[in-house]
């Protein structure tokens, strides 16, 4: 017993000194190697008288564990120390630039279309689309705007043939007609898309974007129209309160028709929506004209509803403080970078329109 205690003390002492990894391994082999001191005790266990063997074996195991633990601890200590000393020499200047970041942008019009779709999705609208090239019938006649109607002059139309039958749609309203012709009521749709008018100055671009809305069912009245738009405008501008004014107006395809203004004020040169005593026109709407319903084979005595058309680019300008409409379509890399959105900022019902 005293022998192993002696060995234990001797080696614990040794291991307490400052050692390198090689010395520790040397010690390990001195103790536990083939002819190691502890190993030899184990080998000789058999030769001990049985009454001593049990106790001695127990002591021996105890000493073995203690020494092994000490050795392992020592090795760990040394390794950590060695890594640490190595790290001293591995310093870099972390203020140097990171590797190149690739970061694309989503155009404000696309972002706003996604916002609009998300808001209307919440109240059960689905998205419909129609062709950019339309014929005269879908763009005008079916929408209660016959050829001799002066309202046609309000639309400066791009034509694609001399007979003026083929054209670029001047509004998204033909999607109403197409949707109602191919399905059965009720209808609850929005139709965002490109629209075209041969008009070009500071506030008009020959191409712009509209979103059409249409809700047809048995008892949809102007109160629903007001409610829907009130909900939309509040959600879109992310405000709790909105000042909204319906002004009677005229569109051939709705009756009664209205234009909708929202209240705003200027604060530090920026438009603040929802307050103030100034009015800004943002959309046109009305109850779908019975003639339009008849044109798409829907009985206007049975079904009725509302439609609206909103300028998407204008909404984007108001919400994001963009002054120049034409810049939307001029592909200035600096502008796209400035007003564009991160592709991960996907507007959705559950995470909201924006951060």
């Amino acid at each position, binding site marked *: 017993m005293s022998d192993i205690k002696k060995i234990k003390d001797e080696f614990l002492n040794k291991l307490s000194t400052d050692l390198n990894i090689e010395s520790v391994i040397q010690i390990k082999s001195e103790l536990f190697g083939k002819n190691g001191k502890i190993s030899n005790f184990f080998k000789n266990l058999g030769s001990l008288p049985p009454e001593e063997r049990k106790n001695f074996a127990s002591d021996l195991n105890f000493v073995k564990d203690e020494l092994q633990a000490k050795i392992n601890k020592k090795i760990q200590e040394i390794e950590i120390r060695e890594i640490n000393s190595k790290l001293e020499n591995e310093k870099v200047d972390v203020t*140097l*630039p990171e*590797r*190149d970041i*690739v970061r*694309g*942008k989503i155009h404000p*019009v696309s972002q706003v279309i*996604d916002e609009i*779709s998300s808001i209307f999705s919440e*109240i*059960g609208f*689905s*998205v419909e*689309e129609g*062709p950019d*090239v*339309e014929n005269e019938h*879908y763009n005008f006649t079916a929408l209660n705007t016959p050829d*001799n*109607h*002066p309202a046609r002059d*309000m639309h400066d139309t*791009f*034509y*694609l*043939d001399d007979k003026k039958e*083929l054209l*670029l749609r001047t509004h998204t309203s033909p999607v109403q007609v197409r949707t109602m012709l191919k399905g059965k009521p*009720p209808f609850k749709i929005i139709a965002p898309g*490109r629209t075209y008018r*041969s008009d070009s100055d500071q506030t008009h671009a*020959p*191409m712009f974007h509209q979103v059409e809305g249409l809700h047809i069912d048995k008892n949809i*009245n*102007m*109160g*629903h129209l007001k*409610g829907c738009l009130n909900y939309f405008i509040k959600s879109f501008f992310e405000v709790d309160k909105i000042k909204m*004014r*319906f*002004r*009677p*107006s*005229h569109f051939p395809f709705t*009756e*009664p*028709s209205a*234009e909708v203004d929202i209240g705003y004020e200027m604060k530090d040169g920026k438009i603040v929506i929802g307050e103030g005593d100034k009015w800004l026109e943002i959309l046109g709407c009305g*109850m779908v004209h*019975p003639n339009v319903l008849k044109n798409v084979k829907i009985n206007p005595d049975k079904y*009725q509803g509302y439609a609206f058309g909103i300028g998407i680019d204008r909404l984007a300008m108001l919400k994001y403080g963009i002054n120049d409409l034409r810049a939307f*379509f*001029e*592909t*200035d*890399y600096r502008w*796209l970078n400035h007003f564009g959105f991160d*592709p*991960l900022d996907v507007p959705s019902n559950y995470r909201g329109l924006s951060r």
Partner: protein
Amino acid sequence: MKFTIGWLKEHLDTKFEDSQIIEKLTDVGLEVESFEKVISDLDNFKVAKIINAEQHPNADKLKVCDVDIGEKNTVKVVCGAPNAKKDLLTVYAGPGSVIPKNNMKLTVSKIRGVTSYGMLCSESELNLSDESDGIIELKSNKYSDKVGKNFFKNNTEKVIDLSITPNRPDCLGVRGVARDLAAAGVGKLKNTINTKIKNNGLQKIKVSIKKDKNQGCTIFGTCLIKDITNKESPKWLKDKIISLGQKPISAIVDITNYVMLDLNRPLHAYDADKIDKEIIIRNSEKGETFQALDNKDYKLDNDMCVISDKSGVLGLGGIIGGTRSGTELNTKNILLESAYFLPRSIRKTSKFLNIDTDAKFRFERGIDPQSVETGLKKAAQLITKICGGNVSKFDVQSIRKYKKNTIKFKIPLFEKIAGFKIKDKEVIKILIDLGFVVAKKKSELELTIPTWRPDITQPIDIVEEIVRIKGFNNIEILEPQKNRIKETLNKQQKLFHFLQRSAASKGYFETVTWSFTDSKINYLFKENYKEIKIVNPISTDLDVLRNSIFPNLAFYIKKNLDRGFKDISLFEIGPIFKDNKPGEQLTVIGGIKSGKISRLNWNEENRLVDVFDAKKDTIQTLLEAGYDRQNLFVREKSPSYYHPGKSGSVYLDKDDIDPVAFFGEIHPNIIKKLDIKTEALVGFEIYLDYLKDTKLKLKDSKSKFQFSDYQKSDRDFAFVVDKNFKAQDLTEIISSIDQNLIKSVKIFDVYEGENIPKDKKSIALNVTIQSSEKTLEDSDLEKINKLIISTVEIKTGAKIRS
């Protein structure tokens, strides 16, 4: 439609303030565009203060003054007045002003080498007195706080400018506006039309309306007014005309204009002595010509409604008169016309000839056919009052009778549409105020529609009348119901939004460009598509619909490169057009990338963008959209605008005939032709329509999770193959040797050059071999090794590189 409040009050008895009237106009649907004074020439004269007066360097008698005109900066004015001195308050006229005394228009000019912006005025120059010795000296107690303000008070009345919707021709006359306001409770409509007029003798010029096919004129009323003295209009009339921003011409012309603006009743006055015998209203014949009052010569087509005499065309009915029969200051006898022309005919003719006049605008929208005599009366009365003369009896020819239309209106329809209720009594009052004749039978009204309202034809029109007069603010807000009929987006729409954000996430900036483009650029990208011309393009360089997503991207990348940018990635997702028919369009996402990767990077090697960047963006986008890389297949075939050797097409399946995408470097000739200044330019395009319905829903796309924990082995091979041999084929051959064991094949080197024959190349691949059943023995591995080598050699004629 412009008028003053004073004019409105000639028809409307009201105590409302101006601002209340303005608000009410908007509330009933007569949108007020503006309410302000007409800008007068005299507004250019401002109260000003001389801040500093120095001697002109080159002239003894001139001074150079710094003048405060109430703006941020002072202006420099050269002045010859002896009394011009520091702190003097005077009158300043800016460039563009017209000096009342001599009608001289001021410009910015150099006076002896010093630039002068406008002038300081004397009393004589402003016609205030004969005092011309010096500039005006204004009293400081009265004017010191008025610097920058107008010197002359603008005495004109404020003008209301309404934007009248095309359904409301009646409101193109002041009386119509007054009627709407009265109905909305603003006051009482005055009964202004004085019916008394002396008619002496017959109208002796014969008038006949020819019964031509599609005759555009149905009523033609006239009276002859003899022995008049045409002259300048009296002040009240001139003021009215001026307040609308128009120029007074002569009493006769001003009166016809006035009646038109007042009652929406266009009239025309002919010099009766210039009419050759009789008036014939007939269809024109192709080739007939006449000179109109706008001094232009018009060449007519067939079947336009013309007013003519024995010698030919006098004017286009309801659109514009001719110079041959025009009135002048010395006109003695006039024939006054008040007629009804059909909107369709007016519209057709004016569009064909491209003429826009006040009369045309009104007739096109629909004039009250029963206002023919009212118009003659009112104008004749004014003419005799101002110009004297004797009025003949009215002669009214007509080929069609205009009955008053009636309509049945069930009152409950109002609530059904508007969503709120108003009392029957109120409904009836509103309609009567608007001019309807109302007969009530239980809840149904029988309404006689006023003849000035051509827009009202059916019950919904009545609903609109009531709701707009009652006020839209009475409509309740009903919270939207959230029930859904259909999913928000269909598969194709989801794909659109997904690909859009997928491309942006790869560093591309999204752009939105016109759907049209320059035919010269489009030509480079149109391939076999038909060119689709726009008949009336906004400009000659936007004259066709785009056949490809690239023309605009190429155009705009050039613009940005010219701005000094180098490494640009742009994409657009939108329509391209195959033909000019609805539906003949495709939705395409196209990306374009220029310059270098890692330019000016401190720790990465820079390199030019190349075909494999475009390929990566294409393939990755497709993978993200849910397509399996294993199935995607690439061919060399690509459109001609790509570099012929560095581009390709992608197919969803090896057996597909139509590609879903193209990628590659842009053809150097195109870069040269468009003068795009870049070191490298690549692009890709994905056709969304060809990706239709190949995608599984997420819930269906996850197969059973299987994996192997047995030991993996990697083996490298290098095969020497023909130079044209496709790497894709090599990996496919190896992959298909044993799909259970061969987990992946990666090409890690392609080599041509030393030790390899000229027409050959070496492809080095790493093959991962793993079993899902056991740890592979050396012998198993050896077997598969040999199989790989022999299969490749047999199938491709390749040789393993030792």
